[in-house]
């Protein structure tokens, strides 16, 4: 009996050690949220997470740029990969729309979460560092809001006072299923005001360049900088129709106030491995071999004939009759190649080539855009044909120009001709970089000469203000909001 009792005692001791062993288990691959903002390094890592929100496979790592071009006339969805998006016929349960919405708000939430974390732990940082990090968060938030409002709401100029429905404006950080996140759609005007306000703070507090890293240039090209904030402000004002401010913020960048930028000598100088961190890049979303939007979402997979080759260049873009500023010997035509085999009769862009690694950076702000933003704003605000506008337009055009003569103020009969030339140049220079459809809409233009995916059937003209120029609010979100969110007309 004594042995038995001893045995049982031993069992009990062994049992209690097992008890501890099976219950005290911490996750090895996760960090408790209490520790996420515990050191300056962790705070910065949690801040940069906001950019990672933008770098979502369905958003600014490439897809969002494709959507803006697919809605316009210059590229065609050869394989029907993007369902009815190019035909302006998405359904309310569209996965494309849902992914954009989710990614955008995820980036905004990451930014808001970091702002809350930085604010609560500001004692661990210098005041300058804290405000610089908050500026990065606001920069990201502005970028996400700007893209979201343009995807899901009619353009700023759809109503005279931009009072039409925009998107929910989220500026706080949530830690639980907070009813505070169930916000109705703010007006487009309110969203623009928020974007401009965030970018203004960002412009004040962001650095010109990042330093103290092993790869400072990498950080400078992929994180918010004064130049990026000022360039984006210029674009936002352009979309808003406030050309004076659009010109001002573009000129600050051009003047070199926020660092030196220039076009590279070659027309493709900002594209392809090794070229992403040149002076031509203002701000890009980086991808690399390990962190990229995978084979089904990456820019090179969709665009390159060596990849999935989903997106071919429309005859509308190639033909001078329908793209009149695209001279036959324009050097940018060298960026267009034919496919091989069954694709040999089709044209593709070579802006995105890293098919195997899917490492192409998504060019969000390129210096050429800043020049063209300025040229357009200046052309519009001047009373006649503005010489400075022509000069900046020439910087972009001359790089690609061959036999055509250079523009002078005399090339344009009036300022409208100059504006048309800037817009025409913008279509060619920024082609396949996510500008075209919105550049048409912000000036109330229609989409004409748009082909269906076969490159043969012509689609009807898509006018400014058409209901399905914008994406449906994801049906699931409307359902979850208990109809606090209102669907866009035409998608109910």
């Amino acid at each position: 009996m004594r042995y038995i009792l001893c045995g049982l005692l031993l069992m009990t001791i062994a049992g209690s050690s097992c008890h501890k062993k099976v219950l005290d288990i911490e996750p090895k691959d996760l960090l408790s949220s209490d520790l996420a903002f515990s050191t300056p390094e962790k705070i910065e890592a949690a801040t940069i997470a906001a950019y990672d929100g933008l770098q979502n496979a369905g958003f600014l790592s490439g897809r969002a740029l494709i959507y803006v071009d697919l809605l316009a006339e210059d590229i065609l969805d050869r394989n029907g990969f993007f369902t009815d998006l190019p035909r302006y016929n998405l359904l309310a349960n569209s996965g494309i729309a849902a992914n954009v919405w989710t990614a955008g708000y995820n980036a905004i939430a990451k930014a808001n979460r970091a702002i809350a974390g930085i604010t609560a732990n500001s004692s661990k940082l210098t005041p300058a560092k804290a405000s610089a990090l908050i500026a990065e968060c606001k920069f990201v938030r502005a970028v996400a809001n700007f893209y979201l409002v343009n995807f899901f709401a009619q353009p700023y100029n759809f109503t005279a006072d931009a009072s039409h429905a925009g998107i929910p404006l989220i500026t706080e950080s949530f830690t639980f299923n907070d009813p505070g996140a169930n916000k109705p759609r703010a007006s487009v005007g309110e969203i623009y005001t928020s974007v401009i306000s965030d970018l203004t703070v960002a412009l004040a507090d962001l650095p010109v360049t990042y330093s103290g890293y092993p790869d400072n240039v990498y950080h400078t090209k992929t994180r918010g900088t004064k130049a990026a904030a000022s360039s984006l402000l210029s674009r936002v004002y352009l979309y808003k129709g406030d050309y004076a401010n659009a010109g001002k913020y573009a000129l600050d960048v051009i003047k070199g106030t926020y660092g030196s930028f220039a076009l590279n000598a070659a027309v493709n100088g900002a594209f392809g491995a090794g070229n992403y961190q040149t002076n031509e890049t203002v701000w890009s979303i980086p991808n690399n071999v390990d962190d990229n939007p995978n084979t089904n979402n990456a820019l090179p997979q969709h665009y390159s004939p060596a990849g999935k080759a989903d997106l071919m260049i429309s005859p509308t873009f190639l033909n001078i009759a329908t793209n009149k500023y695209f001279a036959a010997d324009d050097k940018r035509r060298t960026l267009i190649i034919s496919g091989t085999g069954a694709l040999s009769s089709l044209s593709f862009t070579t802006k995105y080539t890293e098919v195997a690694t899917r490492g192409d950076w998504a060019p969000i702000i390129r210096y050429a855009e800043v020049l063209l933003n300025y040229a357009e704003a200046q052309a519009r605000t001047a009373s006649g044909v503005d010489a400075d506008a022509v000069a900046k337009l020439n910087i972009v055009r001359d790089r690609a120009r061959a036999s055509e003569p250079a523009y002078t103020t005399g090339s344009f009969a009036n300022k409208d001709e100059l504006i048309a030339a800037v817009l025409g140049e913008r279509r060619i220079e920024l082609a396949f970089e996510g500008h075209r459809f919105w550049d048409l809409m912000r000036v109330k233009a229609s989409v004409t000469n748009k082909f269906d995916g076969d490159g043969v059937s012509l689609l009807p003209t898509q006018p400014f203000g058409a209901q399905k120029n914008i994406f449906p609010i994801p049906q699931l979100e409307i359902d979850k909001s208990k109809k606090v969110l209102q669907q866009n007309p035409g998608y109910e």
Partner: protein
Amino acid sequence: MRKFLMSLWCSLLLLSGDVLAQTRTLTGKITDSNGNPVPNASVFVKGTRVGTVTNTDGGYSLNVPVDARTLVVSSVNMHSEEIRIGVATDYSLIMKSLDTNMEEVVVVGYSTIAKRSLTGSVSKVSGSAVSNKPVLSFDQALTGKAAGVQVNTSSGLIGDNVIIRIRGGASVSSGSNPLIVMDGVPLTQGDIGPNYNPSNALAELNPNDIESIEILKDASAASIYGSRGSAGVILITTKKGKAGQSNLNYDSYVGFNEPTRKMKVLNATDYIATVNKLRTNASLPLAANYGDLNGDGKADTVNTDWQEELFRKGLVQNHNLAVSGGSQKATYFASLNYNDVQSYIEATAQQRASARLNLASKITDWLQVGVNTQYSRMKTNNLGSGTGNFFAAIPYGPLMAMPNIPVYGPDGQYYPGVGGNSATLSYSIPNPEAVTHWNYEDRDAHRFIGSAFGEIQLIKGLKFKSQVNVDHSNSITDAYWNKEIGDGLGSGLRQTIYTEANTWSWFNTLNYLRQIGANHELNVLAGSEYTRRTSSYIYNYGSGIKDPDFLLIDKANYVEVGTQNGIGGIDDGLASYFGSVNYAFRKKYLATFNFRADGDSRFGENKRWGYFPSGSVAWRLTEEDFMRPLAYVKDMKLRASYGVSGNSEIGYFPSISTFEAGNYADISILTLSNPGNSALRWERHKQFDIGIDAVLWKNTSFTLEYYNRKTIDLILNNPVLATLGFPNNTIKDNVGVLRSRGIEFTVGTPVVHRKNFLWDVSFNFAWNQTKVISTNLFGDDLYDNNDGTATFSIARPGEALGVFYLMRWAGVNPANGLPTYIDINGNQKQYDRISNANVWTMVKDGSATTAIGATDRVVLKGKTPYPKFYGGFMQTFNYLSFDASIDLQYAFGFYIYNQTKSYLMNYSNVRNKSDDVLDAWSKAGDNTDVPRLLWGDNFWATQASTRWLEKGDFVRIRNVQVGYTMPKTITSRLKVSRIRFYVQAGNVYTFTGYSGIDPEANSVGNTNIGLGIDKMRPYLPRTYTMGVNLGL
């Protein structure tokens, strides 16, 4: 092996062969009540090691000490008897058999109990129901075998999910899989495939090793497993050696399998005509034609049936060798198994080899020790591009590939082109033969399951048992995409994934069995159990293959290589303390009380412990005097139970708010991985069960029961607004209540038992209704969270779980061939496609109207993927030396969303189509369900609606078998005890009106809301085998 067994046998003989000086010899013959000899019965002198076994004539001869007083005679399936030894030397005995199934012993968790004393709901399935069946895993063979146990094989894909639902769905977003325990070892189960293909963990077990399967269904039975018991518990007992019986069994079958169905798609002629008609009706150029393949300038006529090309008769074989035996002191069971299933889909197969050794030894009269072990290796060859709606997937590829292009080009290589068809009109399907042969995903898995136990008799009736358990599994998956055809990648990709899952557990029980006087029986159990589960993986990939002849992932041979390791989703521990009291008064009034406390590492410290009590009572009416006149009632028991169990399938640290490391390209980041919920607590299931078990007339047994189960504090992946910015737009919450009610009925009866002819029937029936009582605070609809695109069904308060939620299709307008729908207000609307836009009008007057959209969805009351009633019907026949069996499975009252068909009816691509399009409307007055052919109209095909919802009702002939056993005259001459030859067919035929892949099709995996979605997974196989059972 034989040598080993011989030496084992000899040592056992030595142990028992104590030679005593003073002996005398007793002889006798043991017979059963029919006068037949009982061979292999053990005859022992009580309290000693002196004993022997009877020979084939039932006779024995035993030297016993002169002071021996009592002989104990025991045999399998017989009541043990004691004989007082007097002066005589001949002691013969007639043994009574344990013939009614009320005498069966049933395993109930940590102990066993006679079925007649059972107070809970337990179904027992014998091992013969799952052995030698042509299935990929034993769980598939459980289909239809037990009332209320629904076993659904998702598809014919090797390794695909087998969904087991005991009494319907038990949860909404947590697991609804039962706990599976084999010889006390909690098993790793479910899908353990790490890449594109699923892999069923239970396929790594040898079905022929199984002695019996007990399914614990009610709370009384299952709550001894506490937090893991809510979805029921399946207890597997493996075969053990029996004292005095030495056996060698060799079981083998060979055969082939083929697809049970082939969905009909257009042949080349109809394809060309249909596609061109679609185009011309829309005033577009033609898109389909035969191409010039051999370069002679003329179009070449080809007609390829891609399904026929890709399918084959796959060889199936199984070989199982088992030896068992033992003495009163030690028993052994050992088996070797080889199972090879070449799927009917070319290039896919599953091969398993396994070995088992079960040993038990009585060291002294108070100490018993033993081990139960199995090791297996399983290799699978599976689809490189998986299933579903990927262009290279099976059956998507063969169904959608153009029928007017060849498999091979004139150069003898796989034909890569599109013949004379238009390439640019949304085709993208690579040659299905090429992708299936050039791409692959192979898995090589090892599994060890073992336990070791010791049992000590402390005092009379009090036993202490301690058992340690291990379940270790690892696998290497090797997936390859050829660089030419890949997955549209065009550069080749190789992925290797090593996975490992470990479970160890240790339990200790004290079991006190006591008969107090004649009236009281007491069975008390107390115990503790500690369980630790871990998992991990290592992932390597290389993309951009330079030279395909070098197979290893190496920087030299790939443009890009990468590696990652991590946790495979499981890293947790469970500390448990439990107790059980079973009391019987005059064998008539029975009561059981169970209690278990579980602490789970994954919960917040304050919500960690869950307490799960249950109680049950039973009344054996047949022990009452007033029942005596009713002679036809041989046994009858009424029982009722109520209890609480929990659901531990809650995921990986669901309650802690956590961040994880990530990347913004080259920059490291820290990002929220789980918003967490520290208030999260156990999901609890309160179940009431009432039942009657009876044996009537000649062994007609029946069980009827009713249950009502309420699941509260459901742990939900609560879908939340995207504006919260939480990963996957969900948060884990305790919200929602679910109620399941049901009736189960089982009857087994010997219909005919004549001298030469036996006919036995077993039938089971289950009716179940699972209703969502509430969801979250807002009463929101919940969607399936396994597959974000599977939004066809929902969980909505007041509705049945998984009810379909769709727009209503209203057929094709016979006047104009336009598709019509019913809007939310009951108006019938149609649309025409004009200038690439859908133009909506009212059917009644042609006036313009708004489009049908998401707001027109309605809950389709009562239409769910869960059958209203289901079960099985088994019959066995014996005539002279012949035997036959036929097993049916049935399910009624459920619906399937036929997404496969919707893909095959798309009017805006040049992929092949279902031959249903031949019924398309073509002229006024045509009554059809297929709209007019018009290129570009894909709204009716892609928009989810009741157009694609079909009744799933089916009756399936699951298994048919005819056998012949060689007469004794021949077998004795061959020196074997039994030879049986048989032929068998599995999944013979399914009677159903369902037009998709299969009425059991499930593409979402192990889920609760989104079951019943038929989305391009392979057909089930039909298998024909012939086999032999040989016994020595």
